[in-house]
């Protein structure tokens, strides 16, 4: 139980760091990388959380997470191919 709690806190902090990366990234690609990492870690977090709360039969949600994360990535890449002309510069974002 302690190991599960420790793991969940560790994954939570990794998620927070990935989120920080996605929130303040220099290039769009870094942002996508952060978002992707956030997605995969979230799926793992749900799996661990299911065991932590003693009801591990909700793993379906983790599968959906992994799936939608992938589709989101593909959609983003497709968006890049589509708008390839105005995307050659690594745009620095001004907040």
């Amino acid at each position, binding site marked *: 139980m302690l*190991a*599960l709690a*420790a*793991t969940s806190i*560790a*994954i939570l*902090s*990794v998620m927070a*760091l*990935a989120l920080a*990366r996605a929130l303040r990234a*220099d*290039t769009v*690609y*870094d942002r*996508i*990388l*952060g978002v*992707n*990492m956030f997605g*995969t*870690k979230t*799926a*793992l977090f749900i*799996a*661990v959380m299911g*065991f932590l709360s003693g009801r*591990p*039969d909700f*793993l*379906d949600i*983790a*599968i959906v997470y*992994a*799936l939608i*994360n*992938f589709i989101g*990535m*593909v959609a983003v*890449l497709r968006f*890049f*191919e589509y708008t*390839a002309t105005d*995307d*050659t*510069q*690594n745009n620095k974002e001004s907040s």
Partner: protein
Amino acid sequence: MILETLSTLFLVLGAFFSFTGVIGLFKFPDFFTRVHAASVTDSIATILIIFGLILRTDFGLVAVKLLFILIFMLLTSPTASHALAKSARHGGLLTLAETRAPKKEDND
């Protein structure tokens, strides 16, 4: 008892590798090394954590679902990283060595 110890070991290792991955995301100098850090540790952390969880089940439906998640993530996560790196390369992003060659590094 042995299973639980083994599972704890796996979970802790998995958490450790997740951490190294996210630190790499901040510390590595250019985008391609950052992709490397993120994707490699993502895979190993997924394998370790899912196996750690499987050892805590009674090897029934829950274990099968976990295996399904594992297969799914092992298929999609590296593919996504690969496609992203390729897309970045096509989009004209340079590695650190290439940016250094013409002028001094300006990446952070």
